[in-house]
């Protein structure tokens, strides 16, 4: 066990955890922030995506010991960001969600895309979102909502 000082959604947090604990489980079990989802644990579905130092990251395979001082942004905090807010609004406007379980990860991935590529092509969208599974199959609306958010951010 070791003590880790984290910055999550702009707030300083301290946790005591086994160094091998994935960031995902620190968020969920220690910080009780359950918006970030467990889907596979092997970086194959994207449900656990957070921003680590501004980069979309699969939190299920990042041991807490490797987080360092990089700030963490989760779905609970992304609404404070203008791009995050625009993406969330576009998701609601396009009635994207079904079960909704993967959508935290979808939204975090989409926000990262739009921050780096404000005017993504269809190919950009497919490449960035291509590793996130939505079992309900909301992909068509995810594409539409990203285009909409991109428009809103003009």
């Amino acid at each position, binding site marked *: *066990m070791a003590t880790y000082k984290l910055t999550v959604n702009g707030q300083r947090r301290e946790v005591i*955890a*086994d160094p*091998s*604990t*994935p960031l995902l*489980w620190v968020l*969920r*079990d*220690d910080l*009780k*922030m*359950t*918006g*970030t*989802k*467990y*889907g*596979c*644990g*092997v970086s*194959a*579905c994207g*449900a656990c995506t957070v921003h680590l130092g501004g980069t979309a990251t699969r939190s299920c395979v990042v041991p807490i010991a490797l987080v360092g001082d990089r700030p963490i942004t*989760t*779905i*609970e905090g992304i*609404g404070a960001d203008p791009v995050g807010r625009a993406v*969330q609004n576009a*998701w*609601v406007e396009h*009635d*994207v*969600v*079904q*079960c*909704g*379980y*993967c*959508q*935290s990860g979808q*939204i975090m991935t989409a926000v990262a895309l739009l921050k780096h590529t404000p005017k993504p092509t*269809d190919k950009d969208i*497919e490449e960035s*979102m*291509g*590793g*996130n*599974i*939505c*079992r*309900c*199959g*909301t*992909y*068509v*609306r*995810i*594409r539409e909502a990203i285009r909409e958010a991109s428009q809103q951010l003009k």
Partner: protein
Amino acid sequence: MATATQTELTRRTFLRVSATAMGGLMVSLYLDLPLLAQEQKVKYPPDAFIAIHPDGKLIIQVNRLEFGQGVATALPLVLADELEADWSQVVAELAPAADIYRDPMRGIQMVGGSGSIRTSYTQYRELGARTRAMLIAAAAKRWSVPADQCSAEASVVHGPGGRSAKYGELAADAARQPVPATVKLKQPSQFRLIGKGAKRLDSRAKCDGSQKFGLDVDLPGMVVALVAHPPVFGGKVKGIGASDSRKLEGVQDVFEIPLARGGSGVAVVADKFWTAKQARDRLKIEWDLAGLEPADSTVLWAKFRELGRSKGLVATARGDEAALDHIPEPERIIAEFEFPYLAHTPMEPLNTTVRFDGDKAEVWAPSQLQGIDQMAIAQTLGLKPEQVRFHTAYAGGGFGRRAVIDSHVQREAAAIAQHLKGTPVKLIWTREDDVQGGYYRPMFLHHVEIGVGGDGMPTAWRHVIVGQSLLAGTPFAPKDGGADPTVVEGVADTPYLVPNFHVSAHQPAINVPVLWWRSVGNTHTAFVMETLMDELAVRAKMDPIAYRRKLLDPKATKPRAALDLLAEKAAWRSDVPRGHAVGIACHYSFQTGVACAADVSVENGRPRIHRVTVAVDCGTAVNPLTIESQMQGGVTFGISQLVPKGAITLKEGRVEQRNFDTYAPPYMSEAPVAVDVHIVQSNEAPSGIGEPPVPVIAPAVVNALARLTGKRYRTLPLTNL
């Protein structure tokens, strides 16, 4: 059931009192709802579907699990329409397990068979209409005017002389009005919400991380449990080497638990998930696998192929069985199809949280079968069902996986909770547990022989289906020992009018647990029927839509209406880019007709699905936005059957896939790029929506591929094009 209701009442009374203490009065309207079928007439004690708060907020209890299908928007919408409620004030809650929340037609509390709207549409409309009548009666009494001079709109009752009162102000008086025995429901022209298209009520919470799912349940003092399951289904623990596991800080206990279908597993209990996971990885378990059938896909296929050549249990026998034998060989099509086991893999892994307090228990579970799961937990704990308070948690998908008649996840959770007495425990199945844990869509083989007449239409058809029964050994098994309808549905009852039509099934017992997978038998039967229709149409040199229309039973109005609308909306199919081709499919399931056209090309040896047009006849379109979503999502779900990692296989009793790295649903690039949905206008009773889109897409895509490559694809998943 009396005690369960009392528990419920106590909770509600508590809520009411505490609300009063906060300075407001919460009034619940209790309605006596006649149960429509199957059940003895139960005198319902007061129980709530609707609570109207003084501020006008309307809380509507949804008698179903919400797991993406949109029922927690659609049923409140139906009720609110008849209630003349202000939609912006409606809040949906998932009802707990209780008799009053049983499916009014089926007699158990459930989501399945695409029946939530179908069977609760009238129930929720009547609830809304009765409540509106009571609110109007309360206002009329207050103003001393006849009720028929009052009307309601947007949560306000209007009376003569410009008088008006809000629902929130009338609720207390309304609750004292008698519940009207009969009510007049609206004409479709009077609908304000039904058919108009309402956005989901749960969107925002699912976009900001605040929506709690079953896996997010957190209770004071709660621990987490994982279970190590035997490597072959039915295996039993012989010895547990747990010393490495117990050394880990946070590990609380390691012990053997019985499993629902025999055999046993090892439960690991720890403070957190990661501790439990590490501890489970370090277990050294000796398993007793003696006498267990080591199911093996290769061996099973050989057995299935042999079975497919002989007649099985008769499902349909129409006309002369020997007619086929008189047809010369060049006029026959002989085709064999193979479908693998499929896992459901809902995004939220399976879980259930239980606290056992000796004489009672409390449960939080994302369940499609609350009452059955509640009973299983009670049985495991030696309690009566009414001693188990069962909360329905929002679920991250399900697709049938949370409707398990043996309640195996809940039984495991209960066994662990019993051991931990007093400590709440959340059982989590990891993704590996889920992929390897059985309860799959069974593997199926179809052997089909068709005789084709001079006009290109089939004149004789012999069809043998081989695959495990879903219902064998359950209370739902066919009483006459005949073919399981979930094995043969979609073929045996096809709306295509083929003379001399004979369908039978072999249902071998195999040591692999199986389960309904979104659209059940139609997952494979529609693929067989619709690819054969395409082959027949090509052979007859006819347009695939025209060919199907010619063969359809004139009484099959829904698939016909869907095909007609598709012909109109998919006019683009005659003009697709070079290298593209269009495939058509149509299917009738869950009382809904769906037809689709898929624009497909081949990229990097895989199908690329550029566009899908879907036409659907589902009777009254209660929420067109949800119908569109379900069609779009359902066709993507159906692509699961085609993707390269879309198969569960077994070798010597062991499942060969582990996680999404080896068994994967479609990713974005494998799903259709665009899906446009068109709904047949209808005032008929609403029919299924969740499952009907799934069966049509895979055949439509391979029908397009056949045009591109000249090959027929009869073995899934698609490996090489």
